[in-house]
């Protein structure tokens, strides 16, 4: 067997397609037997906030791109972000929330979805990136 991929992913953007693709990258790594750790920061953090921003309702800016995404979600051809988060955890992925972003956006730990393993700072998260790939989205 080949050496497993080790991925650390910092999700910063709140754009639905960026968060979606970040999760897709993590899921691809996990599905190939690798490891994936994700840190939700800044505008990506609301995607792991209970009852807020985790559904296709965030697609409201009226752009062509967002309309395409909305249509594909409604048709069932695109798996929604909350489902991808569940999949990632089921396959062994680790999800963290950025402490600084939680303070910035006034989001408490108990407001985060159960899939979040814990809250952490950037330095602590970076310590776990040795010998692996780091992506910032």
């Amino acid at each position, binding site marked *: 067997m080949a050496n497993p991929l080790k991925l650390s992913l910092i999700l910063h953007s709140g754009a639905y397609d960026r968060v979606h693709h970040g999760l897709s990258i993590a899921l*691809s790594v*996990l*599905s*190939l037997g690798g490891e994936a750790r994700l840190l939700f920061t800044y505008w990506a953090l609301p995607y792991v906030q209970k009852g807020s921003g985790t559904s296709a309702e965030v697609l409201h800016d009226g752009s062509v791109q967002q309309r395409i995404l909305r249509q594909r979600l409604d048709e069932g*051809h695109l798996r929604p972000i909350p489902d991808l988060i569940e*999949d990632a955890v089921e*396959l062994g992925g680790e999800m963290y929330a950025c402490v600084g972003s939680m303070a910035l956006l006034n989001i408490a730990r108990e407001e985060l979805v159960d899939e979040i393993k814990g809250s952490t700072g950037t330095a602590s998260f970076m310590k776990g990136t040795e010998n692996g790939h780091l992506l910032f989205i």
Partner: protein
Amino acid sequence: MRMSEFFVDVRGQTCPVPLVETRKAIRKAAPGDVIRILGTHPSSREEVPMAADSMGLRYDIVTRDDVSWEITIYR
């Protein structure tokens, strides 16, 4: 112990869903079980065998028609 067969129908689904559902099935399966994946997404036809390879599992690929394929993984 009797062998179990897992069926993963991911026709119409795009990446990474076929790969993810395959991986979930492999995790649920026991040694000796068989996982059959039916899909249509072209790149998943290449990626599902990559997942099997990464776990050292044997597999067969059958092209069913112009768009669909079936991959059998032997757990």
